[in-house]
């Protein structure tokens, strides 16, 4: 079982970097506890988890909104939960935790990423940008301003993810027609139904870019 993997008890960290062997050993121990259905197997699977009580933390260092962050964390922690529960950046929202809604969209190395599907320990030396990091001081990012101008949100819960996606869509420049923008933004659900206003907001920013 996973408990035989040397990486588990050792914490999987070598010189502050995650070893592949350690990481996958821990992931296996965790998934055994989650996925196994027969009661006997599940009880057995609980043992390595217990043994790893405090020894299983992994060090990881990455940048968030330009600031270096160092964490020593449970390898099960997603980037989303690291941002929200460990780094106090709650602007990024958890809508489904399964990569289905887009509410948590952030940028990693300037690309759109769903942090609910990204383990925090996989981000060594990477640069993460969240909704808190796109304004220039008191001056809103043009996409943020356009969302206000066009009422591109109602409850605001999907808004951080919508804006992070929209910033990338504008920057990438591939989506120019209404249908292309709609398609490019279709990974971000908005249950309040602000889609037509979001489209108008993105078009305003694109027009300003031209």
């Amino acid at each position, binding site marked *: 079982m996973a408990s035989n993997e040397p990486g588990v008890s050792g914490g999987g960290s070598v010189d502050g970097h995650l070893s592949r062997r350690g990481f996958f050993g821990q992931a296996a121990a965790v998934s055994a506890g989650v996925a196994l259905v027969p009661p006997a197997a599940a009880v057995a699977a609980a043992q390595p988890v217990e043994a790893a009580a405090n020894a299983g933390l992994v060090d990881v260092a990455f940048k968030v909104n330009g600031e270096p962050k160092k964490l020593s964390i449970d390898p099960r922690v997603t980037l989303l939960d690291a941002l929200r529960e460990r780094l106090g950046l*709650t602007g990024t929202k958890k809508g489904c935790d399964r990569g289905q809604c887009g509410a948590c969209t952030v940028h990693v190395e300037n690309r759109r990423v769903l942090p609910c599907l990204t383990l925090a320990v996989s981000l060594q030396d990477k640069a993460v940008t969240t909704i*808190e990091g796109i304004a220039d001081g008191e001056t809103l990012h043009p996409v943020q301003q356009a969302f206000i101008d066009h009422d591109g949100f109602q*409850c605001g819960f999907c808004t951080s993810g919508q804006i992070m996606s929209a910033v990338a869509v504008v920057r990438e420049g591939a989506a120019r027609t209404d249908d292309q923008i709609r398609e490019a933004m279709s990974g971000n659900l908005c249950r309040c139904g602000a889609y037509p206003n979001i489209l108008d907001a993105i078009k305003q920013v694109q027009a300003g870019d031209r």
Partner: protein
Amino acid sequence: MRATPIGQPVDRVDGRIKVTGAAVYAADNKPAGLTYGYIVTSTIGRGVITGMDTAAALASPGVLAVYTPFNPLKLFAYVQNQNDESAPPLQDKEVRFHGQTIGFVVAETWEQARDAASLIRTTYQQQPPVTAFPGPPAAMEKADTDAEGPDTVLATGVASVAQAVAAGEVTFTASYSTPVQHHCAMEPHATVATWNGDHLTAYTVTQGAVLSVRRLSETLGVDAAKIHVISPHVGGGFGGKWGNWAQVPLACAAAKALGRPVKAVLTREQVFTLAGHRPLTVQNLKMACTADGKLTAITNDGITSRGFAGSWSESVANWTLTTYASPSIQVTKTIVPLNLGAATVMRAPGEANGSFALESAMDELAERLGLDPLEMRMKNYATFVPNTGKPWSSKHLDECYRRGAEEFGWSKRPKKVRATVDGDWLVGTGMGTATYGASRGLASIKVRLSADGTASVSGTAADLGTGQYTVFAILAADVLGIPVDRVRPELGDSTSPTAANAGGSNSTCTNGPAVQVAAKAVQTELVALAVTNPKSPFHGKDPAEVVYRDGSVSSGGLTMSFGTLLTTCDVGSVEAVGTSPRLVDPEHGFRSFGVHFCEVRVHRWTGEPRVTRWLSVMDAGTIINVKAARSQIQGAVVMGIGQALLEATEVDQGTGRFANGNLASYLVPVHADIPPIDVRFLDHPDPLISGLGAKGIGELGIVGVAGAIGNAVHHATGVRVRELPITLEKLLGS
């Protein structure tokens, strides 16, 4: 006088904090020493729990407690119905539905709680769950229709509605059904609870802070005065956050038991089973009319599900009582209890489903008679409330019809179905009527003028994305004569004066007049201060000679802004609470009205339906903020497009499990599904609902949408679909 901001397009006052991620929602709170709760749910649909082995979970790292029906947190029975679960969680061993709360694990981290929860082994004595309507209606409960006014109206000389239907020159019978649907607000239900001695602070999702206080007071046995609910921002509700679901009492009771703050957030899958759904419905409609299309009788026998865990069910047929004129009308309601989670209110509960049947049927009847659908509706225009005969407070639906038809180009619509083909697409148009009840309740609001020149407006109301913050700011700014950006609205705090909860399209029509009363009353307080405070330049004057206007106090040539006056007097603020009473007017019927026109394209080879054009014209009295109001109607149309074409929660009939209970499989509209949506408002204040003249718009926009789309699909293809959603397999081969 400055120009009124009422009716202007005003940017949301909460816009900046929402686009920067600074708005704080329930799950964003992290009091010191926070622990994390994770709910364990049943894996059977009906039965009794015979055992739960929690040893491995308890031994798991970081775990602080595991609560089960064998080791429950004590929660007292709920006293009042709140459209949620009838009983608090973990208090007995019965399983009423798949995905029911059967345990609650609290640990130092969320990951630890979640993984420990997976180690609990539960054994059950299973029974087969009841998860669908029975064939014959024998096992059903006849129920009160909950109608406003009589549910049976008979024309003079008619002995029964059945007789009136049978005597019709033209008769029409059809059955319409709708599936289980889910709110899917983007924010999952969350509660963060922290105690200070015997005082509880709960940061929780809610459509009304006082609703949560009441529920918690009942179930915790704690004086409501010692419960502080804080909910300034709510990530969508749509009815699903009216009730207080399992995570609310569990987080609060566990925090008390452990002496540590507890955060409990439902997973998205748990939101589907634990936080309510729109029930399954069937409407059996019978209509009779004259050969030229005047309705003579309608019966609508509505059937609705109810969850065994809850008490709420949908009065799905009632919309038939108040929409079209007919001398004889009867509606009934039959409830079928099912082993599904509690059914609850979801945007226009009754009307959204109810209008699908009647708006489809009006179209079907019009087609049979060779009438234009709009002409059919005008022929049966209800000048008085159909089931009571009372006059309306105001109704300009005919103007909505005329204006909508003109701007949509309705007159160019081919009379025949399947008449327009554009490449591989069959093109059709349809329309549907929207109406939703309006009312004004009791509300109190506090307005506070501060020495820094700002005014705050507070009440327990909620902004679920509705724009209530901005409505408060606009109305207070209007009465105080100051710019909107100098008003600070404060919502969602249970210690504020009690205002209307966000539900029933009731917020603005109830809270709006109270904001106006309070903003007027605080001027009197300010003048009283001006003449009595020894440091005031107006000291000693007759209050009748001191005037408040546009943010300043004046008398005898001296004018001073309230901020300067308060600063001069060394007084931090003056405040007043204004109360607007409940409207009692038994003489009139109150509703908002509107019409939707749409174009739908159906792919001739795949059957895929796409909505391609939309126009809504709404008559909802005074519109306070035309910008947010337009968005709210637009959003309701989007939700209605989902209801019509995409949304159905599939119940696995063997187990009672919601087979697609997640956001990948339960299809809500995505951006690419939605065309431009044109929304217009008529500008007719309702003269009787309040001096403000505002009726409600939160629910109005979804009513009639599914009917309009079904009618357009029929016009495009010739296929009439009477079972929502209208998915492509129902149109294949059309």
